[in-house]
């Protein structure tokens, strides 16, 4: 088990304890994770079949869904027990999120999209434009893209802009949900290599969710969601 191996000296990025979540109040069975830990700076590949609860876990980690019992600590701070307002703020400041698609507000320019992330995080960053430029360069995007409306970009470009936006507030935790499903194989591989590279550079903890086992090769750590969840049956 990963939790037994982890040494106490390395701070944890994610620490889930006795977490249970019901999709509907009337449900008898629930989504239950007894224990899961991810160390800071690790890049984890989280895989599982469709419907296995990957996205639910991600929603819980992002604090969009709230658990009925148990708790989640992020970056060694209580997260699931925060008020919804504080949770929103914590997310804005510490967590970057990239979805499968629809990551950007289509009618806003790329720059505006990126600025929005900083606005809600209330970081008061005045050098967004330069930092966005640097990020776009690192993501191998032309900087002229900044002024273009998000919906005029290709899907691959949009996904890379989404990463730039997720990283603008210098988050310590990056959650990505099947970001490559709309990309072809070549751009998919390039995308993941870039993403992992950036995370290593900035020592960002990455949780990469996908059902595509081909992507496992890019990660040192790989976790099957069902292995986290399997004790649910023991418990019930």
């Amino acid at each position, binding site marked *: 088990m990963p939790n037994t191996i982890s040494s106490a000296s390395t701070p944890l990025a994610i620490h889930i304890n006795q977490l249970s979540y019901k999709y509907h109040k009337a449900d008898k069975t629930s989504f239950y994770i007894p224990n899961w830990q991810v160390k800071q700076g690790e890049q984890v590949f989280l895989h599982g079949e469709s419907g296995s609860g990957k996205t639910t876990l991600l929603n819980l980690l992002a604090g969009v869904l709230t658990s009925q019992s148990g708790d989640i600590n992020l970056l060694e701070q209580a997260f699931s027990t925060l008020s*919804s307002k504080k949770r929103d*703020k914590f997310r804005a400041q510490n967590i970057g999120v990239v979805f499968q698609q*629809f990551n950007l*507000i289509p009618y806003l320019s790329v720059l505006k999209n990126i600025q*929005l992330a900083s606005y*809600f995080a209330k970081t008061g960053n005045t050098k967004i434009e330069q930092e966005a430029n640097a990020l776009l360069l690192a993501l191998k995007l032309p900087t002229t893209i900044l002024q273009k409306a998000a919906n005029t970009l290709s899907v691959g470009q949009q996904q890379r802009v989404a990463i730039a936006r997720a990283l603008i507030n210098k988050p310590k935790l990056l959650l990505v949900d*099947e970001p490559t499903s709309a990309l072809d194989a070549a751009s998919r591989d390039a995308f993941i290599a870039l993403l992992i590279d950036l995370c290593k550079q900035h020592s960002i903890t990455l949780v990469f969710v996908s059902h595509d086992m081909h992507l496992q090769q890019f990660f040192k750590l790989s976790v099957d969601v069902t292995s986290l969840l399997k004790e649910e049956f023991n418990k019930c």
Partner: protein
Amino acid sequence: MLVSLAWSSLASRRKSVILTFLSLLISISVLLSVEHIRQQAKESFNRTISDVDMIVGAPSGQLNLLLYSVFRMGSPTSNINYKSYETLKSSSLVKWAIPISLGDSHRSFRVMGTNNSYFEHFKYGTKQPLTFNSGQPFNTLFEAVIGADVAKKLSYKIGDSVVIAHGIGNTSFTHHENTPFIIKGILSPTGTPVDKTIHVSLNAIEAIHLSPAKQAELLNNVDSVNTTPESITAVMLGLKSKFSTFKLQRDINNYKADRLMAVLPGVAMTELWQMMATVENLLRVIGILVLVSSLFGLSTMLLASMAQRKNEIAVLRVLGAGPSAIFSLVLVEALILVILASAAATTLLSLTIWLLGDWLGATYGLFLNANMLNVETLKVITVITVAAIITSAIPAYEAYKNALHSSLGAKS
């Protein structure tokens, strides 16, 4: 940032937003114009007469007397004796008296017989006296003083001669061809019916109603015929003390030698407005209904956009926008629309009134101020804004709920 986000969001849904904007623009214009015209009409009516304490005429209704003597509307039912005027004038309670004699017209402008006390004592607006733009009061029998509108419409100048017809209307058959009047003075604009009146002396009114033979005689020698009037239409009175108003009114109403009626302009004016109140309220109700319907349109538009904005809201949520930020975003969108529509409506109306002002004044006697920026307009716009906030709370709440239940990577 929220405002710029809301603005971009509106811009991305241009078509439905523009239609909603137009519907708001129309309804706000209707409401504002009803309010403005109501205000201005009242003001315009109230300023027609000032400092006149009493109007005395033949017994009829007080409204009737007010309408024909002050507004030149309708016709007097009967006249009063000239001697009554002289009696009133010499009364110890009366400071001044203006006799007026109506019933003739010149190219659809009313002709009013009076004397020079009219130019001296008649006041309008806030006790403003009549002033001459050019010329002077009439001195001799066939001289006339015309209002500003008459001069403007008929392009009359000092020294022009006019022919006055008996009766009211443009095509009177009995033109008093033989008795042309020379224009002696032109009054400054007042924004009251005075502008549309031709003033001549009481004797002149008498003279144009003489038989042709007598008129010929009169034209030869002004003093050969007695033109002292026997009757006049009404008398306007100014009193020495306001406290004697009711005593004098009672005395006049009980006067034995002639059948007289005295009305107080203020009281009659109030009665006039009470009559108008029904129409006024009706217009208001219609205006409000139109506004409510377009506010519902605004709410519907925003509500309909919610389905297509699920992803957008999910993105905002993930960026750290709380449900309350999403709620305010929708509210701000509604407010932008309403405020823009209000500003556009105000501008549109000001422009319209400015362009149509002359025509409204000439045709309906409505003198509107083109400046819409007054307290009343602001009050109406505030009410509209509050109503818009209330109606757009429905779609905003929907967005709030969406935000609460939205999860990462909404896929629809």
